[in-house]
């Protein structure tokens, strides 16, 4: 009797989550650039993200001044001189989830996120590989990709060119709950 009740409950929950929006406000984002002179690493766990199951869409939004660096001065320069977070406070990605995902069936799915990234007032197309893990009580999404700051008109002066990597490796990890 108890088993029946719980399996019925489970089916109801899965059905309801499958037609749902998933949300997180503390997704993890790291970017890392390495040169022989210096490593740059910054982390934020204050990224908001929404995943719409029905439309197969996902959106991310992070406040740039929420990134923590290992060096306080680097953080100041990041905000003041590079991304200009006073003028352009957010980085936003909106995209489609390309690839089959069965949100009713727990498992790991390899997909591509295809959409537009808006950073530093510049919008660019971005296609990145991602992994979606469907669990009983939520969805997880992780992605690793490279991005080039200069694509977003983030100028890097000659004097520090050797210290800042051309490409930044970005890691995203988001654990969603039903909205």
């Amino acid at each position, binding site marked *: 009797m108890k088993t029946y009740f719980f399996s019925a409950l489970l089916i109801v929950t899965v059905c309801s989550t499958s037609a749902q929006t998933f949300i997180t*406000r503390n997704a993890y984002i*790291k970017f890392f650039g390495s040169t022989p002179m210096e490593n740059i690493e910054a982390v934020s766990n204050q990224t908001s993200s*929404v995943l719409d199951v029905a439309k197969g869409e996902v959106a991310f939004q992070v406040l740039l001044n929420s990134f*923590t*660096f*290992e*060096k306080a001065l680097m953080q100041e320069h990041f905000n003041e001189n590079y991304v200009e977070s006073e*003028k352009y406070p957010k980085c936003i990605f909106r995209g489609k989830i390309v690839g089959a995902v069965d949100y009713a069936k727990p498992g790991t799915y390899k997909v591509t996120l295809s959409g537009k990234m808006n950073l530093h007032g510049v919008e660019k197309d971005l296609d990145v590989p991602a992994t979606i893990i469907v669990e009983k009580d939520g969805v*997880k999404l992780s992605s690793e990709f490279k991005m080039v700051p200069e694509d977003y008109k983030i100028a890097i*002066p000659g004097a520090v060119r050797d210290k800042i990597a051309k490409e930044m490796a970005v890691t995203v990890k988001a654990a969603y709950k039903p909205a």
Partner: protein
Amino acid sequence: MLSLFGVAKAQDDLLDALDTKPTETEKKKEIKYTTATFKGTRIVNMQSPEIPGKGVMQFMFMHRFGAVNDDFFYNFFGLDQASVRISLDYSPTDWLNVGFGRSSVTKAWDGFLKIKMLRQSTGDRNMPISAVLYSTLNYTTLRFNDGLPHNESDRLSYSHQLILARKFGDRFSAEIVPTLVHYNLVQTKAQSNDVLALGFGGRIKITQRLAITGEYMLQMPNNTYFDEATQAEVPFNNALSIGFDIETGGHVFQLHLTNSRGLIDPQWIGRTPGSWANGDIYFGFNISRVFTIVKPKTPEEPAW
């Protein structure tokens, strides 16, 4: 039909879903603190409201060449009478900076404390200015040569400042600095041990990494020195400095012109005999370099 339309509109942007239920922690994060009101911890000689970040140590080297009107070429462009100060400071917290230095003028040691009291912010807390308290204790090791008996306390002088600063947008920042300097020893009875002054400082950014700076220290006119030639009390001049801030990665390079040769606060604030009009102009620079001693905590990567 209407409700359907409403739903469709709400779903237009996925991120709208975030606006529905902002959590308590998110509400607190709405305070937006102003950063980088000035590039360096000093404008030229005067303190800015900035301190190095938590866990960061700063090494600073200040250098003033001899005056341009003082046999400039004979003295190898003023290099022969250079005045220098070296200092180290450290910020154990976000709001406190402590340090010490040694300067060649009056062979003085100085210790200082800088405390951030208010931070300019917008959002849920609107604070129009930053306020920073700055105090120094200065000890000259110069030998007394007046043949008079002296107490050890005669070597001490103090300065206290309240730095009230505001960043007006991206490019322009300004500060007003009420100042009190106390000298344990003065030359004559006519002279006051306490000097009140009001400092003004500012900077204008030309590019992201280049700024023009300026500062002026207005003293009460009763601050005088005994002039041997005229046998009279003559007021000291007010220190006026203009400069350039050049920022390159881990350090700030400041170039400037000033009529003040002294580098510890009681010297440049209240003991500046030189005047711009007479050509008592000193070319100088400050170089600072920061070292991260304690790394800030960054969020842990999720284990999955």
